[in-house]
């Protein structure tokens, strides 16, 4: 079904992806521009997204799915991640696409045969929202070995936009991670700042892979990314000055529960990763150092 299965291990050996000459800063230009223009408003946007994130958390999208279980969802997201890397898109595009997948599965039943079509169509929609030059439908269809047609993608695009009522600007965990990490990095210089840049690269990696985990995908994005950030800071032996995000109210139990979940998840992951610095380098290359 997934002709090109994609996961971290596969990617590790894939030299074409790893040693791609394309500059990551060019890849995520739009993303950086976005933040430049919005600097004055970034705190307001943060608080606003914090207040509405609960609306976009999908918790039961796989109930009543006869053909899709959490393993299948994980495979789909893993494959989408590969397509996303191959096309060198901004990181938030993937997070938005996966959120759309979950929200579509929440209101519709999907057949196993069309999961990949769902994957590329959500990437198409998220790209039109986020990217300066979104990939063309033909490129995306190419990732599916010609199983689907242009008309099918266009038709599904329409069905998806209706199903989620064009509500696409969702607060993603990626947004919160960038907000936390940038706040921390900006308050430290020199060696400590460099360490925190490493933490951020690792956190980006862990957070991106957490999209494949059905349980983690149901957590509040702001909370999930805080836990991922804290674990990345520990793993890279950095010091973020015991950073606490503003306005994020939670109970200790809440935090500890998700923290433990993320800890288990990242321990499994790091166990399988050869060495952390290589991961960081890869994510530097993918999404830039700044």
């Amino acid at each position: 079904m997934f002709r090109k299965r994609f996961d971290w291990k596969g990617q590790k050996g894939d030299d074409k992806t790893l040693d791609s000459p394309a500059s990551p800063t060019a890849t995520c230009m739009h993303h950086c521009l976005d933040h430049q223009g919005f600097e004055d408003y970034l705190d307001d946007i943060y608080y606003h997204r914090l207040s509405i994130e609960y609306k976009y958390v999908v918790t039961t999208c796989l109930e009543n799915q006869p053909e899709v279980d959490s393993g299948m969802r994980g495979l789909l997201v893993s494959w989408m991640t590969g397509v996303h890397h191959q096309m060198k898109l901004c990181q938030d595009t993937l997070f938005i696409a996966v959120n759309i997948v979950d929200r579509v599965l929440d209101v519709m039943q999907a057949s196993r045969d069309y999961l990949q079509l769902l994957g590329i169509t959500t990437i198409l929609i998220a790209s039109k929202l986020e990217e300066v030059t979104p990939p063309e439908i033909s490129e995306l269809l190419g990732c599916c070995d010609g199983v689907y047609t242009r008309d099918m993608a266009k038709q599904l695009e329409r069905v998806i936009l209706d199903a989620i009522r064009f509500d696409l600007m969702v607060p993603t965990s990626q947004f919160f991670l960038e907000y936390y990490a940038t706040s921390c990095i900006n308050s430290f210089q020199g060696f400590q700042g460099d360490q925190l840049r490493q933490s951020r690269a690792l956190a980006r990696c862990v957070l991106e892979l957490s999209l494949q985990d059905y349980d983690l995908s149901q957590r509040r994005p702001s909370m999930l990314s805080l836990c991922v950030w804290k674990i990345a800071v520990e793993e890279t032996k950095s010091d973020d000055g015991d950073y606490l995000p503003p306005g994020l109210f939670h109970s200790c139990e809440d935090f500890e529960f998700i923290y433990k979940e993320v800890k288990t998840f990242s321990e499994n992951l790091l166990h399988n990763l050869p060495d952390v610095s290589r991961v960081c380098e890869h994510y530097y290359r993918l999404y830039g150092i700044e």
Partner: protein
Amino acid sequence: MLAMTSRKERFDNNNYEVISVIGNGAYGTVYKARDKEGQLVAMKKIRIQNTEEGMPMSAIREIALLKQLENYEHPNIVRFLDVKHTNQTANEIRLNLVFEFIDQDLAAYLERCPSPGLGPDRIRDLMYQLLNGVDFLHAHRIVHRDLKPQNILITRNGQLKLADFGLARVYGFQMALTSVVVTLWYRAPEVILQASYATPVDLWSCGCIFAELFIRRPLFCGQSDIDQLAKIFEILGLPMEHDWPENVTLPWSSFKPVPPQPLQHYIPEIESDAQDLLEKLLQFNPHKRISARNALNHSYFRDEIDSLRTSSSMSVSESDSGLDTSSRSDTPVSK
């Protein structure tokens, strides 16, 4: 469809019943309709080019932005309730945009207003709400571009709400095909000269509307682009040559030099604070024109702000930071 079937009820078709046509704008037809609960809504039917790549990027972004703004429930912005595809052809995507229904626009409100017109407090309240809505749009990088009494709505309890913003780029395709005459009377001079289309264009329109609240007829009624500019200069005087935009087809020298007229000649009842604000809004040079945020802090609104500050029901002091201006006029302060 595509082996995907709807499984939750919130997801079904045709739950709006069209009652009548409200208007035929430049952007297509607007209908008065009723939803399943019997609530009246305004439904806009728009057509977008169906490209090889599916829904155009601009349309997706603009509609997603409207949807996102809805999360703020700003008191001076019309509620955007729903969006849905209808039957499409190979070349066209058809969408229904559903908004809250408000049966009165500012033009009708002014027409119905008995002599001698609106009182100064009512004018100030309306202006504050208008600028508050414009400030909210500008904070989200949306330029309305077509503010006029016809797309400013007034609810029964005097709340002012902006409509028809953010869709200019969605409609782009269709605009090119229509020959509907768009009114020039609220157009900023730099728009007529095709020099720039940034946020100040909306503040010019606010100035024109401000004057109209006093005199209950438009301030500048031009019949053509050139006539509109001439009408503007007749009252405000020909601007200085160095304020004239560069690289525009109409040169400064094609207008005869006229001195500015005192605004009191045209608006006898205007008080000095109001006049000062009006002059700042009707600045020819967009760079010198006052911003919505600064206009809201103008001394003309000082009492308004003070009365809101002292009111125990809301804490305005918190809303001074950035985007969250919504608490400033949660309740219409009609007097």
